């Protein structure tokens, strides 16, 4: 199926377009920057960068790209430690470090792995099934865009109290969402966590980790280079997904039909994503893409500005060529849409036909949007009229950076002093009662009521999964080369002492990988916290990053990538600081892995360590 222009009827797509020229002429037009989440100083900065007021489309781009979620504006100054505290020795196995879609680690024999953990917390609270499902979808696209075949997923989860009336909705929805999407993609689920604690009641944590494998020569980066190369958008059509409240931008359309409602939730289509995986792998194999970028949060805004600023610096795009699911979308909304299962690639003109043939084979829709230029500008047109003219770096990289104030909470001393002072358990009866109480805790009991809803066999390379402490997958069938991964976090430890809590999370994941017999090589992390505008939360965050960076240095493993999720709080109450740490290790032969647990009678038991 070859579709090069939108099927939407032309008359439905005529908006009263806020062009760059119009913006220059009408400096005083009121813009809904506050409703789009920009602070006044941020809006002023945009005006300063452009030397005029932004157009509606530019405003859409800056507002989504400068959001906390996309710009890391509160966390950036701290995260720098992950780079600063890395030694050359730690970088030995690193092929791609922090900053790309996911880090890439050399595991020998020309093989590499890429892995990353990300959060989808808030969407999963609003719509548990779809929120969790699209969380898996998003992290898997990060892995594909590095040039890798995804081979496994993991899902560290945190829920509120198990007996709270809202918990079943969240647990069942989220677990079936992760299973529904992951199982349909054919990715074995090789581990995760389930923790119930009332502190997560209004803010469940849904973190998803994906791991992919590739040959060294297959690494792909998200950049648009080669003047004259073509930019193509492929996969699902663009709808109003994820725009929700931001539909204030509808005000840019004065004479169009009333736009339909904009859904705040995204619905995942795992079948479309499975096809996207296979079709991308075929593109890589045929070497027909120069650069590639997945579309996640901030959709086309993010993909165009990041591709352009990581490459030769210029790109020219015609937005009316985007294939739409909802023809009433305005240009700004198209730029912001978070529709799932889409990718953007840069292709040389010579490879265009080969690219199209692969799309046709997999029945994937695509549209050519524009080309790479050497102007240093990202120019986006709507029906030939210029609606965006920006330096892409100012959108993608030069967002605001905050040094938010932080201080140690005053209540912490009292909390730390409040140690257990109950009776020591000496007699059999009290010990028995204590053991039973422990065993019946939802956090201690078997998780197979959850893990049995996940496929751990598919792909035939899973050497360890539940109930073991780390998941192990084989990478090379010939040699048995493979990797082990574990994710761990303990919010209660971090609440008591965020610096030590982060170190302990790393130590636990590191141990879980090491005890399978693998050599730990690299770290990914998802830092789940409350509001950065609360100085106490900000202190927890700063201490966590400092602890994790220090511990990484001591153990000699680098952080290769990760994700920060802030504003996990309801009312004034933040969640416990929850740094989920994933460690990846390598085996030269997974046949030598050691499972956890005692398997056979008569074996001797040793206790090692402190």
């Amino acid at each position: 199926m070859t579709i090069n222009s939108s099927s939407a009827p032309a008359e439905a797509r005529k908006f009263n377009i806020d062009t760059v020229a119009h913006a220059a002429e009408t400096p005083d037009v009121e813009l809904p920057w506050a409703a789009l989440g920009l602070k006044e100083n941020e809006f002023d900065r945009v005006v300063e960068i452009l030397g005029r007021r932004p157009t509606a489309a530019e405003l859409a781009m800056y507002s989504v790209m400068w959001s906390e979620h996309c710009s890391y504006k509160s966390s950036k100054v701290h995260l720098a430690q992950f780079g600063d505290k890395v030694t050359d020795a730690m970088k030995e196995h690193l092929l791609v470090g922090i900053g790309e879609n996911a880090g890439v680690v050399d595991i020998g024999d020309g093989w590499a792995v890429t892995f990353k953990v990300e959060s989808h917390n808030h969407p999963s609270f609003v719509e548990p099934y779809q929120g969790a499902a699209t969380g898996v979808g998003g992290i898997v696209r990060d892995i594909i865009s590095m040039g890798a075949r995804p081979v496994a997923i993991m899902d560290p989860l945190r829920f509120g109290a198990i007996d709270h009336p809202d918990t079943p909705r969240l647990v069942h929805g989220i677990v079936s969402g992760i299973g529904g999407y992951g199982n349909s993609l054919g990715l074995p689920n090789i581990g995760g966590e389930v923790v119930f604690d009332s502190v997560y009641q209004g803010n469940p944590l849904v973190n998803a980790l994906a791991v992919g494998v590739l040959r060294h020569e297959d690494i792909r980066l998200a950049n648009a280079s080669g003047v004259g190369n073509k930019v193509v958008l492929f996969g699902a059509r663009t709808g109003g997904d994820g725009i929700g409240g931001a539909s204030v931008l509808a005000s840019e359309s004065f004479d169009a039909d009333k736009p339909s409602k904009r859904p705040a939730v995204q619905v995942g289509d795992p079948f479309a994503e499975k096809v996207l995986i296979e079709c991308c792998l075929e593109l890589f194999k045929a070497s027909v893409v120069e650069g590639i970028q997945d579309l996640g949060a901030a959709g086309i805004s993010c993909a165009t500005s990041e591709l352009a600023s990581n490459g030769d610096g210029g790109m020219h795009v015609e937005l009316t060529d985007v294939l739409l699911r909802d023809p009433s979308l305005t240009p700004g909304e198209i730029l912001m849409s978070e529709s799932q299962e889409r990718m953007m690639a840069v292709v040389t003109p010579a490879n265009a036909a080969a690219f199209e043939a692969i799309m046709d084979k997999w029945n994937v829709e695509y549209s050519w949007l524009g080309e790479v230029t050497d102007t240093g500008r990202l120019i986006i047109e709507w029906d030939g009229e210029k609606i965006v003219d920006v330096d892409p770096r100012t959108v993608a990289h030069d967002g605001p950076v905050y040094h938010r104030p932080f201080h140690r909470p005053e209540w912490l001393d009292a909390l730390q002093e409040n140690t257990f002072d109950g009776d020591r358990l000496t007699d059999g009866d009290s010990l028995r009662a204590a053991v039973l109480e422990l065993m019946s805790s939802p956090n201690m009991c078997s998780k197979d009521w959850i893990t049995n809803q996940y496929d751990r066999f598919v792909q035939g390379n899973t050497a360890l999964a539940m109930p073991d402490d780390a998941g192990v997958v084989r990478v090379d069938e010939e040699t048995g080369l493979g990797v082990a991964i574990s994710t761990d976090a303990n919010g209660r430890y971090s609440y008591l002492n965020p610096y030590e809590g982060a170190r302990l999370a790393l130590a636990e994941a590191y141990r879980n990988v090491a005890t399978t017999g693998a050599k730990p090589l690299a770290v990914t992390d998802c830092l789940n916290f409350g509001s950065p505008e609360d100085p106490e939360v900000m202190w927890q965050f700063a201490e966590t990053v400092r602890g994790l960076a220090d511990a990484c240095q001591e153990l000699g493993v680098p952080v290769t990538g990760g994700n920060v999720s802030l504003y996990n709080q309801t009312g004034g109450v933040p969640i416990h600081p929850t740094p989920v740490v994933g460690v990846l290790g390598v085996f030269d032969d997974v046949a030598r892995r050691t499972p956890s647990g005692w398997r056979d009678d008569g074996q001797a038991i040793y206790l090692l360590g402190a």
Partner: protein
Amino acid sequence: METDAPFGAPALDSVRVGIVTFPGSLDDRDAARAIRLAGGTAVPLWHGDHDLQGVDAVVVPGGFSYGDYLRAGAISRFAPLMEQITAAASGGERALPVLGICNGFQVLTEAHLLPGSMIKNNHLHFLCRDQRLRVENADTAWTASYAAGDEIVVPLKNQDGQFVADERTLDELEGEGRVVFRYVGANPNGSRRDIAGISNAAGNVVGLMPHPEHAVEAGFGPDSSAAGLVGVRGGTDGLGIFTSVLKKLVK
């Protein structure tokens, strides 16, 4: 299980088994691996092609062939290659052996190569676990390496695995010995009469919901075997399904 051909006999690897890939197939590479480990030659087949490439047998593997949002197998049954398979599988004496696993089984029922259908599991959840089965019929193209009554353990993993058919069909299947696999122990999904797999009247077409291709390689299979203790993920009880067809065809 012997996979090496005795001296002088044609080698098992001369047997070419086609593995069908639909856009949403997931266990196709696993099925190909199973054929290789059993000693045969796996031949990838694309759903959109019209040519069976002269293969000696076909496996329709697990997955979500077209997303399966409508009904598992509902859309894939119309694939061009399925027409070829349906014709070849119905070809009397020299009919093509066809195995449908999980989604493949669903495709074969939608294509009317096998009776009945699969609906949602009675507990409505996706269920992944090691599953004990009894081989009820060891005379089909895909079960000759076993003896009737043998038990095997292979992984089960699906959401729409509840086998249903009307009573007459069920009686017919039982009467003609076409119930090939039956669940042992607790019924995992509500399937009528504990049926896990069935065959057509000629015995060349077999479908089953559990996944024998995930119990063929020690270290990557289920944690148990019907034959007794195994190492970690050491179950390989499913291999016999694939050696069955290879041995039959090499003769």
